[in-house]
């Protein structure tokens, strides 16, 4: 079971590092709770009709929860590279018999688990302020979460490859991060966008993750009803993950040719 031991080793490394910053850990939780309060009051001044029948608070809260774990998936892979370069630990890890692909995937375990915890915190905090979770389809929520994590991670690993090769100025992060906020339907439904932007929004995994997650969390949507989102997110992951891992493999190779593994 070496891969399971390694997964646990990476998880423990990041957990204990996180816990060593006691106040930072606590304040990240407080941060989420404060944000929930702000969305609650914001939602009270917005009419219900604009959100396809969803409560504005519920609509925005799910948007924030999904955006939270999307952002983590986009940045955590690059951070594992950037963090290890100045410390010199990247080289030391790559000098072990652990493959670079295993390294990049296992590095994400704790950040993604933490992002999942934050997403739960959004929902739990929201429930305290009146968010109804009576119609949750738990297996569907978990499936959408898993598929969207894989889809977002594909972009995150490509972004890490960019960091490895070009060091700074990652256009992928900007493109997917900023466009997801603008077009993905985080704060408002995609329907209100002009036609060409609506079409562009379909190319972003977050658009489908949000539609699926809202339906599974707030409407008890069945797997059959969620098939379009499951299919599209699955396709993003199926194509994106192998491609991004291949790109990462070549990124490492490039850094070993040019001697820039530890350059930042």
């Amino acid at each position, binding site marked *: 079971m070496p891969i399971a031991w390694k997964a646990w080793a990476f998880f423990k490394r990041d957990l204990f590092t996180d816990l060593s910053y006691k106040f930072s850990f606590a304040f990240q939780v407080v941060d989420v709770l404060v944000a929930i309060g702000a969305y609650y009051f914001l939602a009270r001044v917005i009419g219900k009709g604009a959100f396809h029948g969803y409560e504005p608070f519920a609509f925005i809260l799910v948007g924030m929860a999904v955006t939270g774990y999307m952002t983590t998936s986009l940045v955590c892979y690059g951070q594992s590279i950037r963090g290890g370069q100045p410390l010199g630990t990247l080289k030391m890890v790559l000098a072990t018999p652990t*493959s670079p692909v295993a390294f990049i995937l296992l590095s994400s375990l704790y950040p993604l688990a933490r992002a999942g915890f934050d997403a739960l915190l959004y929902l739990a905090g929201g429930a305290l302020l009146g968010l109804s979770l009576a119609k949750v389809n738990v297996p569907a929520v978990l499936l959408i979460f898993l598929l969207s994590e894989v889809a977002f991670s594909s972009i995150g690993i490509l972004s890490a490859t960019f960091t490895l090769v070009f060091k700074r100025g990652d256009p992928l992060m900007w493109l997917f991060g900023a466009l997801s906020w603008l077009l993905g339907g985080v704060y408002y439904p995609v329907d209100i966008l002009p036609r060409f932007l609506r079409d562009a929004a379909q190319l972003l995994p977050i658009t489908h993750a949000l539609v699926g997650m809202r339906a599974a969390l707030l409407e008890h949507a069945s797997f059959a009803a969620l098939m379009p989102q499951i299919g599209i997110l699955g396709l993003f992951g199926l194509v994106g993950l192998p491609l991004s891992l291949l790109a990462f493999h070549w990124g490492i190779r490039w850094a070993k*040719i040019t001697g820039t593994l530890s350059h930042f």
Partner: protein
Amino acid sequence: MHKAIVTIENLTKSYSPGRYLHRLVKNGRRPGSSPDVLKGVNLEVREGEVLALLGPNGAGKTTLVEILATLLLPSSGRAQVCGSDVVREAATVRQMVSYCASASENFYPRLSAARNLEFFAILNNLPPQQARERIELTLAHMGLQGKGGVPFQHYSEGMKQKLALARALLKNPRIMLLDEPTRSLDPLSQKEIRKLLRGLLIEQLGKTVLLVTHSLAEAEEVCDRLAILHHGRIVALGTVEEVKRAGGGTDLASAFENAVGEAECQ
């Protein structure tokens, strides 16, 4: 005579990707590309010996060691560790080689020394129980028993260097690549590390060591043979006495200057 555990044949390294790709496609040289850091290095490290690699800054010492640690890809030529090629069988090589980098800061600063070692032990395929036993043993070897719970960032430079050696010993490697293990240490700590190198790694544990150093005294004290690398070429190789004789001097410093000076003239 011990058999060679590391074999390096006509090894070259350029950091220019164009040069690498050109060689990959045409197996030739592309005029005008950046100069090679290593220019046809041939070297053997024999089982159970300490080979010191000396040379001025920029000679290519770290490049050579990082190729053996599979952290760099050579441009041409071949390097093998226990018969496994460092490019084609990199994963096998990484099982047998331990690399101790020159900077002592390559640990996670907020984690304790023991947690750092545990992480690297498991990445080196040690099962958790065996990892814990090895950690206790290596910490004791390095005189760090009782200090495992201290965060790495609270360690002194000397302790950090000892911890780096402890990490390199965790998987009980066939060969240890030590890149300037006494750099930025005070004379007392240097002496202590050298004692560990000679007494523990070599005499007690019988490890094969490739030691990169700038210190001629260290090389003379610790190594069985030494190689002087200059501008990417081996310009002297042999026991300390052989290198001294070849350099026409009575001390290693003049032999070093002569070897480097002659190479400069050529």
